[in-house]
């Protein structure tokens, strides 16, 4: 589509960028990039719609825009008015704005409602070779399809609503190659936590990360979404995985996926997207999948993670003075003592959900570990599906029964305790094993302490009441299983 394709091997990210170039920036000006898909939710959009109203501007492309309610939505009593007045106001504001401007909206109670990054892919709107933005940093999720997808601020939301474009400086590219085979009990979440621990929470700054290698190719779309989702936690603008047959099989037949001749055209184009032989990345990182183990964070940023079989590190373990101070502060906040084996750390709560890990495969993994078992006494276990449709799918498979028999709470869809904008929050001092994406201070509730883990580790932890991997669980008898 672009008129000036450079005559050299290009990366996946460069190809998608080049094909969305409306105006090439000259003299230090940014490029003007076309946006194929704009996802909207209630938190970062009210001020953007206000801006449009103030200037008398319409939404330029309603057919490239879709909204859902997720951050504030309650996960219980969804048929009742939202109790929290400010949450209700924010959701009502989105409903009013969507109605006034004509934006398609999936509201609480609608079968397509859910976390914006779960809804886009399941509708088949997210596809290879497109640009996706949303006023949410975890928009990087959609890169799993070979899309260029990144989070934007509210001013940019307004800009995209008005112009369907964004002025952007080209991103640098970083190849993250993961070769080998993941051991049983090790999953996509462990891969990305290990990547972040390796390159740090700012290691990806200014980059689009391209995840490649045999271990990535072997992952399902859900696994790839988990990895791309947390690219932002390494400071990257976006994460991407080249599209392949796994991608096409996931997409085919979804409500908004291309059909007929359009499908054939699309697949022919999508097959041209993987990085060319000899394409040059600005940086490269390698990981050995065979050596990865279940991972867990011990601190207050997603880079402060270690193997679950390890111990809580000491501040002195860090050479960098900033990291040392941060570790000291994190240990105090997390109420952890250096040298403690992580598997001896007890938890008060387990949260299974968020845009990182709330898709059907995540719920299946969680269920596979807890089936036939009972949760540890005194541990609160919440299972929150990523969308209303995932909830229905899980119930059709009987997973809801597995969760409730185990003693877990089976909730309605939303962002929930990932960031606690709704009533799902930790109490001060409570410790949680969470399948979400951020372990910042107070993220899951003021004074709450978060350990980021995979669904498999979350499940084993819910059984034993302390951080644990599935291999730590006693084998079930045939009758129990």
């Amino acid at each position, binding site marked *: 589509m672009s008129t000036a394709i450079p005559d050299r091997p290009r990366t996946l990210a460069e190809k998608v960028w080049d094909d969305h170039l409306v105006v090439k920036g000259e003299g230090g000006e940014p490029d003007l990039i076309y946006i194929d898909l704009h996802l909207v939710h209630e938190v970062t959009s009210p001020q953007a719609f206000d801006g449009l109203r103030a200037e008398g501007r319409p939404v330029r*492309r309603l057919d490239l825009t879709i909204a859902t309610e997720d951050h504030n939505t309650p996960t219980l009593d969804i048929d009742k008015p939202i109790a929290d007045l400010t949450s209700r106001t924010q959701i009502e504001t989105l409903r009013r704005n969507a109605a006034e401007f004509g934006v398609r909206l999936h509201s609480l109670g609608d079968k397509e409602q859910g976390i914006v990054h779960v809804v886009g892919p399941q509708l088949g709107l997210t596809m290879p070779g497109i640009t996706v933005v949303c006023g949410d940093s975890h928009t990087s999720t959609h890169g799993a399809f070979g899309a260029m997808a990144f*989070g934007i601020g509210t*001013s940019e939301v307004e800009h995209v609503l008005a112009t369907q474009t964004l002025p952007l400086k080209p991103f640098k590219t970083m190849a993250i190659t993961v070769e080998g085979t993941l051991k049983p009990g090790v999953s996509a979440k462990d891969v990305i936590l290990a990547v972040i621990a390796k390159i740090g929470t*700012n290691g990806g700054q200014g980059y689009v990360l391209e995840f490649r290698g045999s271990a990535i190719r072997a992952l399902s779309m859900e696994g790839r979404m988990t990895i791309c989702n947390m690219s932002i936690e390494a400071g990257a603008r976006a994460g991407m995985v080249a599209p392949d047959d796994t991608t096409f099989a996931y997409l085919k037949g979804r409500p908004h996926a291309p059909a007929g001749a359009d499908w054939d055209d*699309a697949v022919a184009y999508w097959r041209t997207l993987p990085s060319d032989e000899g394409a040059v990345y600005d940086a490269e990182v390698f990981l050995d999948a065979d050596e990865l183990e279940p991972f867990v964070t011990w601190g207050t940023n997603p880079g402060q993670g270690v193997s679950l079989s390890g111990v809580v590190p000491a501040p002195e373990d860090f050479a960098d003075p900033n990291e040392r101070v941060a570790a000291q502060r994190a240990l105090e906040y997390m109420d952890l003592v250096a040298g403690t084996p992580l598997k001896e750390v007890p938890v008060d709560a387990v949260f299974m959900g968020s845009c990182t890990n709330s898709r059907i495969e995540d719920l299946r993994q969680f269920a596979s570990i807890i089936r036939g078992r009972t949760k540890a006494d005194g541990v609160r276990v919440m299972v929150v599906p990523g969308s209303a449709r995932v909830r229905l799918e899980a119930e059709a498979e009987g997973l809801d029964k597995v969760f409730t028999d185990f003693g877990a709470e089976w909730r309605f869809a939303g962002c929930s305790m990932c960031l606690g904008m709704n009533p799902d929050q930790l109490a001060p001092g409570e410790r949680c094993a969470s399948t979400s994406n951020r372990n910042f201070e107070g993220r899951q509730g*003021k004074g709450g302490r978060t350990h980021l883990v995979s669904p498999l580790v979350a499940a084993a932890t819910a059984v034993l009441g302390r951080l644990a991997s599935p291999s730590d669980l006693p084998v079930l008898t045939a009758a129990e299983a």
Partner: protein
Amino acid sequence: MEKFTTHTGVVLPLKRSAVDTDQIIPAVYLKRVTKTGFEDALFANWRQDPDFILNQPTYAGASVLVAGPDFGTGSSREHAVWALRDYGFRVVLSPKFADIFRGNAGKQGLVTGVIGEADLEAIWAAVDADPGARMTVDLQERTAVIGDLRVAFDIDDYTRWRLLEGLDDIGFTLRNEEKISQFEARREAWRPRTIPVP
């Protein structure tokens, strides 16, 4: 957006690295639907500690924040910038900023200058020696002066120019309306459409 040329104000030394957006403004404050009035939300959890630096009378009315590296990491919430701006901050200096935060800041007239680690320490030392000291930030020259100390900061040419001119992004982009329409006419049929609903 108001034009920014120079600014002089009290320096708040925030001696922490990796100040994430959940610390700048906790999620509970994101429920508001207005674009102003976020001053009470700035560093809300930390401000409950009476000893937190923002609570000290010496730094009342501070408008230049000088923080450790990796300022603004985490979520895309522009509210983090609004909270800083509404509190009265016009400038943040740090050795490193998160990308999205920095982009958001540039759109709201908040100057984010990248300084060297040694300059960071020097500024903090200057404020320790003279708490409540004022700094003059010159965007044209890309310099910050406090007492006898003069440091250079980095900000890209384009953002600097937009801040100096106080330009509105959307109006600027819409000068390319014809090119956007031409691009749209070339888009392939397979690309996603949210409506009609199938």
